[in-house]
């Protein structure tokens, strides 16, 4: 018998080890992000405010740390986790490592739904905004998804090229509609532009509370279907030969991933790159099996967006903020080039 050749593509991490590391990183990152912000709070004071059993300090400090910083950190973390899981699910279903909520037109759909709500004046005032924007974005996301599915079906089926092409068509059309809404309604341009770029500025606990009821069930649904995702990633024929009701499971997962993506767009606007790159990075680090992939993508996506947001709110002098979508895109471009280079070498 020949000696067993060493594995030519050793993965850098075992999924469990990676998961443990990412969990620790997330647990350290959440309080650490609360140390940063325009309002000066000493690190010791900030940490004391986070400790629930510490004696009450200055109420102002506690409010800044808990209601401004921690709430925003939690929201950013949840949003990043949701986007990453959504991207991983779309990639598994479409069998396309470059698929994500954007490729499918889901994010554009959510953005269009919210733009329409803004221009119709439905989002005036904080509570009206909270009550109207997310449902409008969710409705837009689902409408875009079903438009894409219908288009793909008419074009001959749910093959991955068909579905992605249909996504591009719908997404381009919706972008044009968003531009039209902007052109027709000069007054809301600033609001829409701010919102479309993606930002956590001024977002906090109410937004997190609004995101969670959509995000958590969607993620739970995805996590209970990880073996089905493994099967779907083998392609429709193999999945069905092995006994998967491919059409039903794919639809369930598409809706779940769209809900997660739409809900994040609703509370934070359009934030690119997280859903695309995080699953990609996790796959390169610890393999493509979907149960660890989804869990580790959630952990990495959350922490990544948390720090992207920390950067966005601290990098400009004088308290001005960058939209977090700009930061993720600036980080994402070079990262993508490095990963593409690694991937090509790996396949060579």
């Amino acid at each position, binding site marked *: 018998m020949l000696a*067993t050749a060493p*594995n*030519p*593509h050793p*993965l850098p991490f075992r999924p469990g080890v990676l998961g443990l590391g990412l969990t620790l990183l997330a647990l350290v990152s959440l309080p650490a992000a609360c140390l940063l912000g325009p309002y000066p709070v000493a690190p010791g004071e900030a940490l004391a405010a986070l400790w629930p059993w510490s004696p009450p300090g200055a109420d102002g400090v506690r409010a800044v740390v808990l209601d401004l910083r921690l709430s925003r950190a939690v929201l950013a973390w949840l949003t990043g986790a949701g986007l990453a899981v959504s991207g991983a699910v779309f*990639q*598994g279903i479409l*069998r*396309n*490592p470059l698929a994500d909520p954007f490729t499918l037109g889901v994010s554009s759909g959510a953005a269009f739904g919210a733009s329409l709500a803004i221009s119709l004046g439905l989002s005036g005032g904080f509570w009206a905004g909270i009550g109207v924007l997310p449902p409008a974005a969710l409705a837009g996301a689902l409408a875009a998804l079903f438009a894409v599915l219908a288009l793909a079906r008419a074009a*001959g089926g749910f093959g991955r090229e068909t579905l992605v092409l249909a996504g591009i068509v719908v997404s381009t059309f919706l972008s044009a509609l968003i531009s039209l809404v902007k052109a027709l309604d000069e007054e809301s341009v600033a609001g829409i532009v701010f919102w479309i770029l993606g930002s956590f500025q001024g977002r906090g606990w109410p937004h997190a509370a609004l995101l969670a009821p959509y995000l958590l069930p969607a993620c739970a649904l995805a996590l*209970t279907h990880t*073996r089905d995702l*493994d*099967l779907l*990633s*083998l*392609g429709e*024929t*193999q999945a*069905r*030969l*092995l*006994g*998967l*009701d*491919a059409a039903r499971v794919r639809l369930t997962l598409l809706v779940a991933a769209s809900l997660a993506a739409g809900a994040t767009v609703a509370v934070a606007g359009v934030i690119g790159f997280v859903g695309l790159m995080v699953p990609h990075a996790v*796959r390169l680090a610890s*393999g*493509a*099996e979907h149960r660890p992939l989804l869990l580790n993508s959630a952990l990495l996506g959350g922490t990544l967006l948390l720090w992207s947001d920390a950067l966005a709110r601290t990098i400009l002098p004088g308290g001005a903020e960058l939209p977090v979508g700009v930061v993720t895109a600036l980080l994402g471009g070079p990262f993508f080039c490095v990963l593409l280079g690694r991937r090509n070498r790996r396949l060579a």
Partner: protein
Amino acid sequence: MIRLRDLHAGYGDREVLAGVSLDLGPGEMVGLLGPNGSGKTTLLLAMAGVLAPRSGSVLLAGRDARYMKPRERARKVASLPQRAEATFDLGVETLVLLGRYPYISLLGGYTAADRAAADAALAEAGVEEFRHRAAGSLSGGEFTRVLLARALAQAAGMTPPVLLLDEATAALDLARRMAVSQLLAAKARAGALVVSAIHDLNLAAQFCTRLVFLKAGQVALDGPTAQVFTATNLTDIYETPVAVAPHPVTGAPQAFPVPAGAPGPGAPAGPR
């Protein structure tokens, strides 16, 4: 075990199977032969119940495949598909365990019995050494044997085991090809139904008890190997001259395509 009645099936506007009727039973090792595009792969997909018939029916153990749940179908028939490309690199062990998917409860995991079946299948297919490798790092032949292990894991526990194989041996070297063929023949002798689409006529003639020749979506010929594997039949079906002679060791009929211009099978063997 598998009963096809006037089966018509195809993709889009194209009808590939134009009325196929077959009865396949346990203990048979059936070679599915025929020229390119004759419908072998389509027939296997229809038998597995994943390609819905346009008309006619597929009965698995007496029940119409159309009315069976996907998981139930996958517990009756195990498959090794052709051109199986993996987009993402699943591990070999994960991939083989997926053969047990139709048996697990929907939210539960694999049981010890499932893992034992996967272990046995890895050993039978001779791919234990790849257990911890990523599927994408394997060669074509190695990957095919991993898919064979998955099909064996899927068939474990079926009564009788039914294996539908699409070119399971095409990518294998000579030694592996013989080993896999002998394994499948042994399964059939032990009561399994093995249906194998195959391009290698001689391998089919060596190991199959029954040959089914497809041509243009219909059964052109069906019968025990010794009866149907003749020069006349092969010449007709493949539309090129073929000579048949016994294997020098086993005596099984073997086919030899005859180049144009060569003396025919009846002519003297050349100048002495």
